[in-house]
C-alpha cells in the first residue's frame, strides 16, 4: 500500500466473495454441459466426448414436438404481447395525462403482482370450464396464457424508450404537415424500434422459460420443452435431460449475446 493510490473503490474481501460467487454460478452449469457431452450410458461415469445424447434427443419424437410447441407458443406470445404492449405504452406515455391513465398502468402490471403459481392455477380452473364447453384442446390456451404474462415484460422496455423520447419530435413532424399516422410511421415507430425489439426478446425468453403456467394450462398430451423436461425429471435423471438442458442453455446464451452485441454496436 506504500506507493499505491488511496483507492476509495477498494473494499477488502469484496473481490474474493465475487469470484466465489461467479464460480458457484458457473461450475454447476459447466458440470451440466460436461454431462451432456458424456458418451457414457450412466450419467456420472465419464466415457469420452460424445454427441450421442444430443442425437438421442433429436431422434426423440416427443422432444421434437415439445420443442416445436415451445417455439410456436413463444413466437406467437412474444409477437402478440409486443403489439399489445406497444399500443398500450403509446396510450399511457405520450401527451397529456388522460383520465384513468394510472389505472391503465396498474392493470397492465397486474400479472406481475400475482404469484406465478396463483396465476397458473386460477387460469387452469377457468380454462378447464372453457375446454369443457368448447371442446377445443389446441395450443391457443398456452398462447393466450403466455401472451398475458408477457405483456408487462414487453411493456417495460417499450415504455422506458418512449418516456425517454422527445415529445417535440412528434410536434415538429405535425408542424411539417404530417398526419397522425404518417408521424407515427416515420417518426415515432423508428425511434421506438429498439424498445420494441428489446420487449419482443424479453417476452420471447420469458415465454420459452415458463414451466409453471405451461404445465397447468396445457391440454393432456401437449408438451412444451420445459414441461417435457419436468416430466422426464420425475422419472429419472438421464444424460438426455442434460443434453436438452444444454440446448436450452445455448439458446439463452445466444439470445443474450445477440442482444448484447446489438446494444453495444448501437452505442
Amino acid at each position, binding site marked *: 500500500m506504500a506507493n499505491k493510490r488511496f483507492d476509495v473503490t477498494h473494499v477488502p474481501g469484496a473481490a474474493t466473495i465475487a469470484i466465489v*460467487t461467479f464460480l458457484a454460478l458457473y461450475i454447476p452449469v459447466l458440470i451440466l454441459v460436461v454431462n451432456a457431452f458424456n458418451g457414457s450410458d450412466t450419467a456420472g461415469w465419464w466415457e469420452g466426448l460424445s454427441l450421442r445424447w444430443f442425437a438421442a434427443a433429436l431422434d426423440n419424437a416427443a422432444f421434437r414436438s415439445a420443442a416445436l410447441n415451445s417455439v410456436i407458443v413463444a413466437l406467437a406470445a412474444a409477437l402478440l404481447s409486443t403489439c*399489445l404492449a406497444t399500443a398500450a405504452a403509446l396510450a399511457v406515455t405520450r401527451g397529456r395525462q388522460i383520465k384513468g391513465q394510472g389505472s391503465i398502468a396498474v392493470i397492465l402490471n397486474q400479472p406481475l*403482482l400475482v404469484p406465478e403459481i396463483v396465476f397458473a392455477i386460477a387460469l387452469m380452473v377457468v380454462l378447464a370450464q372453457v375446454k369443457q364447453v368448447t371442446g377445443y384442446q389446441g395450443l391457443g390456451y398456452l398462447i393466450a396464457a403466455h401472451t398475458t404474462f408477457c405483456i408487462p415484460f414487453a411493456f417495460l422496455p417499450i415504455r422506458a424508450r418512449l418516456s425517454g423520447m422527445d415529445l417535440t419530435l412528434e410536434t415538429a413532424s405535425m408542424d411539417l404537415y404530417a398526419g397522425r399516422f404518417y408521424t407515427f410511421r416515420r417518426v415515432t415507430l423508428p425511434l421506438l424500434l429498439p424498445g420494441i425489439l428489446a420487449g419482443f426478446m424479453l417476452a420471447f425468453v420469458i415465454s420459452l422459460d415458463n414451466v*409453471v403456467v405451461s404445465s397447468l394450462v396445457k391440454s393432456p398430451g401437449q408438451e412444451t420443452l420445459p414441461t417435457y423436461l419436468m416430466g422426464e425429471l420425475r422419472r429419472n435423471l438421464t444424460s438426455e435431460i*442434460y443434453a436438452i438442458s444444454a440446448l436450452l442453455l445455448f439458446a439463452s446464451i445466444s439470445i443474450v449475446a445477440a442482444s*448484447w452485441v446489438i446494444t453495444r454496436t448501437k452505442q
Partner: protein
Amino acid sequence: MPRNPTAAANESAVMRAETRRRWSLALPALTVITLCSILPLGVMVAYSFMEAGQYGNVQWGFSLEGWRAVFLDRDFFDDSYIPATAHLTILARSILLALATTALTFVFGIPTAWFIATRPPATRAYWMFLITVPFWTNLLVRTIAIQEVIRADGTLNRLLLATGLIDEPLQMMFTNGAVLVGMTYVYLPLMVLPVYAAIEKFDFRLAEAAYDLHASRLYCLRRVVLPLMWPGIVAGSILVFIPALGAYVTPRLMGGGRAMMWGNLIDLQFGQGRNWPLGAALSITLTLVVVGAMVWYARRAAKGAETNG
C-alpha cells in the same frame, strides 16, 4: 389568460376525444389481462368462499370452511378446532426460506455487484454479461444444474467420496437446506442487477469526501455508501423475496414432498379429491402477502424519491 365559454367547451371536447382515442389504444392489452388474469383471480376469490366438492372442485353455496382450514383443523377424535399445524408449518417454512434466500443472495450478491461496478468500464460489460446469462437461462435448467451438484450420486458427493473425506454419500437433497441452496442459486442475479445499478450511480467522490473528513473505511461504508445504495438493496431484496416466497419449481425439485413450500401446497390442494376452497384461500393469502410487500416497497421508493430529490 381570458377564455370564452366556447373555447373552453371546445378544449374539453378535444380532451374527451383524446382520452377516448388513447383508451382504445390500450384496450386490447387491457382486455387480454382482464380475461386471462383478473377474471381468473376473481374466480379464485369466489372459490375460496364456496364449499368443497366431493371429488375436488367446488359446490355452490357460501362457506368459510376454506378460510377456516388455512388456520384451523378439526380434531380427528372430538371434532374440536386445533391449529392446522401441517399447513402453518409449510407457510412458516416458506416465509423463513424466502427470508433466508434473500439474506444469502444479499451476502453473495452485494460484494459481487460492488466488484462489478468498480471494474474499469471496459471490462465491466463482460462481468455484467456473466451475471445476465444465468438471469436469462431457464430456471428449470439452472435448478437441474444445482441439483446435479448436490444429489446423492451427484458431483459433490462423488468428489468427497473420491478424496476419502466421507465414506457414504451425504443425503443433502429433499431438505430445507437443499431448497435454500437451490433458491439462492437461481435468484442471485435478481439481487445483483439492481444493486449494481445503484452502485454504478454512486458518486465515488462522496467516499473521497468522507475519507477527507476523517472517516474510517467502515464509517464511510456505514454512513455514506450503504445509505445511498439502500434503494438498490431494497429493490433487490423485493425482487428475490417475492418469487422465492411463491416458488414452485425449485422447492419441488430440491425439496420434494419433504420440504414443501407455499406454492407446492397450493398446487396440492387442486389435485383430485382435494380441498379447492382451501387451495383458493391459500392462493389469495399468498397474493395478499406479495401485494403487501410490493405496496410497502412502492411507498418506500416514493418517499425516498421525495427526500432525495
